[in-house]
C-alpha cells in the first residue's frame, strides 16, 4: 500500500515513479495506491499511475487506485483511464476486493 500526498507534477513524478515501480518489482504486484491526500495531479502524475498498472499486470498483479478527489476522478474520466483500471472510493474497498464498489 502506498499513500501518496501533496502535488504530483513533473517535479515530483520521478521520485513517485521510482517508489511505485520499485514496490511492484520487489514483489508487490497487488499494490493499493491511495491518492486520497493528493492535492494536485497533472498528466505527468497520471502517467506514473499508468506505468504502475502496466508493470503490475506484466507480473500478473493489479494496482488498485483509491481516489475520492473529484478533480482527479474527472481527469481519469477525460483520459478514459477509468475504463482501463478500477478506481475505489476507500482504502477498505480496495484492500478487500470481494466487497469493493467502483466509483465511476
Amino acid at each position, binding site marked *: 500500500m502506498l499513500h501518496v500526498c501533496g502535488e504530483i*507534477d*513533473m*517535479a515530483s513524478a520521478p521520485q513517485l515513479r521510482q517508489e511505485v515501480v520499485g514496490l511492484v518489482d520487489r514483489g508487490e504486484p497487488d499494490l493499493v495506491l491511495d491518492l486520497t491526500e493528493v492535492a494536485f495531479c*497533472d*498528466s505527468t502524475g497520471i502517467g506514473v499511475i499508468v506505468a504502475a498498472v*502496466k508493470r503490475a*499486470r506484466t507480473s500478473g498483479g493489479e494496482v488498485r487506485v483509491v481516489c475520492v478527489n473529484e478533480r482527479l476522478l474527472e481527469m481519469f474520466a477525460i483520459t*478514459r483511464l477509468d475504463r*482501463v483500471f478500477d478506481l475505489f472510493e476507500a482504502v477498505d474497498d480496495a484492500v478487500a476486493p470481494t466487497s469493493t464498489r467502483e466509483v465511476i
Partner: protein
Amino acid sequence: MDADGGVELEIPAHSEFLSLVRAVVATAAALDPRLGDERIEDLRLAVSEATTNAIESHAQLGSEERIAIRCDLGDDRIEVEVQDHGEGFDPDSLAPLPPPTDPERLEYEHGLGLPLMRVLADETRIRTGADGTAVSLVVYTTPPGRS
C-alpha cells in the same frame, strides 16, 4: 491579447517552478470575482500542462532560455499564454491514443496533456514553429455568445 493589462511571468525552464506558475495563475484568476473555484482549477491545471510541455521542449534542446507566461484578464475571459523557445511540433500529426479497451493503451504514459487542456479550457490555441511554441488557454468569465 492586450499586452499592457496583464501579468507577465518569466521562469527558468525547470520543473521546480511549476508550482509557482500554478500559484500565479490561480491568484490572477481569483482577481476576477466572476470565476468560481472550479474554473480557476480548470485553468490552473491546463496552464500547468502547457508549462510542463514548454519545460520539456527546452530540456530537449538543452536550452537555458526562460519560459514566459502571460495572464490577461479580459472583459469576458481570462487568457493565459505559455511561450517557449523549443523547436515546435505539429499538433495535427500526434498519434491518437488507443481506445481504453485496447491493451496497448497502457503503453501510453504520455500524450494526455493536450487532450486535457482542450477539455479544461474553453479555447485552446497553439501557434508553433521552429522558434518555439505559444499555447493560449482561455476560460470564459461570462457565458459566451450572449453579447
